[in-house]
């Protein structure tokens, strides 16, 4: 009911949402967030991106975030899938999908999970551009997004 997966293979967000929806006919709403690799960052064309992570800690962190979301809201299931390794523009990087009886809880839980994933889960992005490769800087807006939840 709560699936968390880190994988180097591409994934299809639609399949994840379908599995979540199929889980329970009491589900009234599914909110999902798909994070996609953009082809431009800070004005430069990005050809590929490589995602490094901290195996073990990543899974633990995501599990703790999903557990917290389930404590805060009445959910009927969730799926979190995150790519690692090399990917190309427009590839899905992450999917967070949450099902609930009422939509407000699904919206809140979905945004909560992605906000904390962004600031707590040990993933690091490295972009390859025509100028060479560079590690992506953390965004202050992500810290602000996390701070709203007052954990």
């Amino acid at each position, binding site marked *: 009911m709560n699936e968390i997966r880190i994988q180097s293979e591409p994934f299809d967000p639609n399949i994840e949402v379908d599995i979540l929806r199929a889980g329970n006919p009491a589900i009234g709403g599914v909110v999902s967030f798909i994070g996609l690799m953009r082809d431009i960052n800070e004005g430069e064309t990005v050809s590929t991106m490589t995602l*490094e992570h901290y195996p073990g800690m990543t899974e633990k*962190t995501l599990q703790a975030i999903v557990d917290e979301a389930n404590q805060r809201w009445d959910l009927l299931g969730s799926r979190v899938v*995150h790519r690692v390794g090399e990917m190309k523009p427009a590839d899905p990087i992450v999917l967070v999908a949450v099902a609930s009886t009422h939509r407000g809880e699904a919206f809140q839980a979905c945004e909560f999970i992605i906000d904390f994933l962004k600031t707590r889960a*040990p*993933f*690091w992005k490295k972009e390859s551009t025509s100028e060479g490769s560079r590690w992506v800087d*953390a965004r202050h807006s992500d810290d602000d997004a996390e701070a709203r939840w007052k954990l």
Partner: protein
Amino acid sequence: MIKVLFFASLRERLDEESLEMEAEGLADLGVVLMRLRERGGIWSEVFAADQTVMMALNQEMTGADAAVKDGDEVAFFPPVTGG
């Protein structure tokens, strides 16, 4: 002994994925960080006081005041950028 891991830009700059340290005398993560800084060269740059370095103890994000004991897994890394 404790195991110390480095990730992302830290790993690349230090050209080191992991190392082991004697646990004795390591009161907390702040002391571990200081020991790494004392190695000099690139180590003193990466772990300089003005650098933003995040740390984890046994795979949980924590701060410099977290107590360290024999057998612990410690990690240092830049702010995370997943999602």
